[in-house]
């Protein structure tokens, strides 16, 4: 995923969570300021870091993310959107 593609996905996610923040491409990663003023960076991991695919950085903290879904979950918490509406997928019984 290119940095602009990641920026667009994160921007859509912020809109979905109704968080006012604007992610911007910075080199190979994305930077933004969370609503509480915390600077955040999302950086792609290098191949040697696998299975880590992304790093989410804030001052004094670096969180590894092994998938894009993991990244969105971590990112959501970092911007303070919580999980108030989060739901786990459930599978219906056959023919229900």
């Amino acid at each position, binding site marked *: 995923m290119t940095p602009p593609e990641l920026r*667009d*996905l994160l921007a859509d996610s912020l*809109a979905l969570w109704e968080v006012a923040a604007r992610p911007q491409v910075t080199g190979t990663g994305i930077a933004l300021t969370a609503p509480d003023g915390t600077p955040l960076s999302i950086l792609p991991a290098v191949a040697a870091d696998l299975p880590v695919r992304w790093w989410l950085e804030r001052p004094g903290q670096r969180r590894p993310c092994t998938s894009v879904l993991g990244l969105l979950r971590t990112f959501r918490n970092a911007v303070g959107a919580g999980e108030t509406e989060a739901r786990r997928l459930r599978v219906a019984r056959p023919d229900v």
Partner: protein
Amino acid sequence: MIPISVVTGFLGAGKSTLLRRILRDPAWADSAVIVNEFGEIPLDHDLIAASEESFVSASTGCLCCVVRDDLTQTLLDLLRRREAGAVPPYARVLIETSGLADPAPILHALMTDEALAATHVLSSVVALVDALHGEATLARHPEAQRQVMLADRILVTKPDLAAAPQGAIRALNPAAPLREATHGAADPGWLFAAAPRPAELPDWAARHTAGLASIVIEREAPIPALALTLWLQGLAEHAGPRLLRVKGLVALTEQPDRPAVLHAIQHMVHPLEWLDAWPGEDRRSRIVLIGERIPRHFPARLLAAIEVEVAAAGH
């Protein structure tokens, strides 16, 4: 006079399942079916086994708003084709509204058009209420409330999963007879029998939940099953209760020659059903997602990101 029955109910309540089952019954196969879908691409046409000639799909918008003016014309066109022998001599018309339709304007159109009144009569309005999601849906969506309020008969679906939301239903419609049905196993004779009807009903203006929209995703290349599963998980997790419905015909990488029918109602996804073959030449995956205030490109961007990741992992 040709009787018309309107089958309504919120997204995922089981309208298509009910109709599919009824049309399999030889005693009710002589029904013309008009299906309205909220999505921009019609899918139910491929999923309801109806006679090709007497099936009309109206998918350009919500029947109660955009398509309402065309409904009378559709019914009269169908009648002309029937009289010309171009369609089988159907005994009744069943109209499946979109799950987001307020039935009031539809009933108004059916009851007040003079040309239609000479040949057709509104027989019954059936509202389906999902036992599992019904109570929350009735509390949240004005369309669902109006569907129940205007029903002559109420069919509670999925009663094996949860108790019927009797209180919520009766608060809206204290008098309509109510039955329960699992997997669409309801008596059509009861559903579609003529119901007494006042000559005039108040307040025909359609009411809708704000911010509802359908989003279409089309894919040329088959989708890995793992990517589809992760995508649904991501949608459920991040869109939460704002995700109302996902349905589609999907070409999976693991079995691209047979389309998989995808159904999800809110965060409840049904096991994939497999069709024997693609219904037409178009073999692209077509998924329609209906939700409240979901950014238009979010579902496609999420799927693309997951597909890249799944491909990189060698799946």
